[in-house]
């Protein structure tokens, strides 16, 4: 179906189902129960899952396939956000023109940066992209203030032209009348499910771009990109110039980032320069590596994982911990809370850093590789594979009898 193999089709269907059912799946605990704080089914967070998922999928097309580690992808995120808010200011709150502009602008921007940066590889490429992103960030803060509104951030004011705006159109971001921040709530016996328009808008776009990235992964183009990662010199020797391929990958991933940035501004009509800072670029690197670079599902998992912990983990404080361990003797309880204290609440970045290091050290393939290893050891597939190999490859025989 849709040019995918049978296995991929069922995978895509599973992803579609999971994405669409997210508001239900992420709300496993009834309202008011002690575990309700682990529920992630509120619109703001779900939107972030989808948006950063798109960002990470795009980054993965560059880093996962070609191995070029860009430390400047946040620049495209920022460009996307600014484009969308400008379209709000000039036309109306409909997000479609803004998103189209976001993709075009970030694509052009990526073409420019990629054309220059891709002349070098390895660490130099990382530094070049980092330098470009920092340059855009600094400029957005200072000289480009008329375009970006500097530190205040770009937002819509009442005296903006908004030429397509009439009395009937909504005064917040909408998709042909479907207002993004509206949601319907359903209460099923204590479970409160929120179905948010904005989330579904992002989710559908995320599914489409996921499908696109799947096609890229399976296409000859994707195989070419992987060949570049494996051995660029050999590519050169076979008479292929890798530059156009890497540039194409860079531009595609830049457009993904621009789209993600545009969606961020579609959910909340604001754009600030801090979205372009290199810490934001670092975040997408973390997401991709944590989930598993070069795999289809990994970056989305990583994005979801980080955003979930950013929102949920950081809310746990000492009182909550005391609540959990209240069954233990007092001294032990205090000791455990004291032990966990640096890692929770505001300290969740420490947990993230440690986790990231552990993943890089022990699981270079990320969470996906961890999952596969566990799955294989449960089903015993590794052993089977080894036996297979034994059967298919006859033992080397002596040349002279």
């Amino acid at each position, binding site marked *: 179906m849709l040019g995918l193999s049978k296995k991929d089709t069922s995978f895509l269907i599973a992803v579609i189902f999971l994405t669409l059912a997210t508001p239900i799946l992420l709300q496993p605990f009834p309202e008011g129960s002690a575990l309700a704080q682990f529920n992630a089914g509120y619109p703001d967070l779900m939107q972030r899952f989808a948006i950063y998922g798109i960002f990470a999928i795009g980054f993965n097309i560059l880093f996962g396939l070609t191995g070029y580690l860009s430390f400047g992808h946040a620049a495209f995120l920022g460009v996307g956000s600014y484009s969308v808010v400008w379209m709000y200011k000039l036309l109306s709150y409909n997000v479609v023109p803004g998103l189209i502009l976001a993709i075009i602008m970030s694509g052009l921007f990526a073409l420019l940066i990629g054309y220059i940066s891709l002349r070098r590889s*390895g660490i*130099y490429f990382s*530094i*070049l992209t980092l330098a470009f992103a920092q*340059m855009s960030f*600094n400029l957005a803060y200072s000289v480009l203030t008329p375009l970006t509104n500097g530190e205040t951030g770009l937002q819509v004011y009442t005296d903006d032209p908004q030429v397509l705006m009439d009395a009937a159109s909504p005064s917040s971001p909408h998709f042909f009348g479907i207002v993004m921040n509206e949601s319907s709530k359903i209460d099923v016996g204590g479970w409160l499910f929120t179905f948010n328009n904005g989330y579904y808008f992002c989710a559908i776009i995320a599914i489409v771009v996921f499908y696109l990235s799947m096609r890229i992964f399976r296409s000859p183009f994707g195989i070419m990109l992987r060949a570049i990662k494996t051995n660029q010199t050999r590519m050169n020797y076979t008479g292929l110039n890798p530059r156009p391929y890497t540039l194409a990958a860079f531009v595609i991933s830049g457009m993904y980032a621009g789209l993600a940035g545009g969606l961020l501004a579609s959910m909340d009509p604001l754009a600030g320069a801090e979205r372009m800072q290199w810490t934001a670029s670092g975040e997408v690197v973390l997401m991709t590596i944590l989930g598993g670079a070069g795999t289809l599902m990994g970056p989305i998992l990583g994005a979801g994982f980080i955003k979930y912990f950013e929102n949920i983990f950081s809310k746990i404080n000492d009182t909550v911990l005391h609540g959990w361990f209240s069954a233990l003797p007092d001294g032990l309880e205090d000791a455990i809370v004291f032990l966990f204290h640096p890692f929770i609440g505001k300290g969740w970045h420490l947990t993230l*850093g440690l986790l*990231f290091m552990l993943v890089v*050290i022990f699981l270079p393939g990320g969470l996906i590789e961890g999952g596969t290893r566990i799955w294989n050891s449960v089903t015993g597939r590794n052993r089977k594979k080894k036996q297979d190999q034994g059967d298919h490859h006859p033992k080397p025989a002596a040349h002279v009898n």
Partner: protein
Amino acid sequence: MDAIILQILNGLDKGSAYALIALGLTLIFGTLGVVNFAHGALFMLGSFCAVTMQRILTLSYTIEDPTQKDFLGNPLKVDTPYLVSWFGESTGQALIEWSVPLAILFAIPVMLLVGYVMERGLIKHFYKRPHADQILVTFGLAIVIQEIIKYFYGANPIPTPAPDMFKGSLDFGVLIGYAQNTIIYPYWRLVYFLFSAVIISAVFAFLRFTTFGMVVRAGMADRETVGLLGINIDKRFTIMFGIAAAVAGLAGVMYAPINSPNYHMGMDFLVLSFVVVVVGGMGSLPGAVLAGFLLGILESFASMNEVKSLIPGIDQIIIYLVAIIILLTRPRGLMGRRGVMEE
């Protein structure tokens, strides 16, 4: 002319910091071949050594002073640092005032140890892994160090003043024949520049004139052969890592009065130092120092009002712009060796 001299002087202190960090980065890259993204964190740790020293020296106990009364009529509680009660008022206060320079003594062993533990515990396992993995793991380590510091010292910058002796400014213009108050340069920045010049010369002299340094240089040129000659080169490289960490730490200690230490200062400097290293040429020590000062001075020139009115925003991007131009036109940097990381 006086404006130019002033800008050169202004560039020197920031340039010194860049040069010291870049020197450490290059030492690590040249010896171990590792791209260390945690080097900024080491600089930050150095700054916090100064903060720690200040805190240790001002450790106090509280006594009730019956001769003084607070506004309610109760005996006034007075904090007295232990140092003051041990060494008397003047010596104790002087010691506290000199906490930043004293922190150097404290920072050297601490940073050597941190560097040693880092290399043996973590970096050692990454020699055979790709550069991307090294960048990622040290990036993670930088986050961890940063968060630990944030946990213990809080998120706000902590002012660490220089000794009173260096509080004022030197009227440099008078010395070379200009009118008064044309070229003013704070004493501490001068101290910082001289200090970094001393450290840089010490590192170069160490590599140049000691047997240990000779072996290390030989190892940088051809690690395998040195190993085959029966020299334990790994051990020496580990020590070099410790020294590189100590250099970054010292740069941080002395920088504390210029810029109050906060937990993310390392990251801010790291990005720029990497640019410096790349401009100077990967693996070239003189290149790193030269590029550090060059970019520091360029940055201060770009922030002159005359230049800014000519090209708006140039002060924000000059370093990156120079880096991009150099990387594209001269792939191995200003003084890089042929064939080292030239892809």
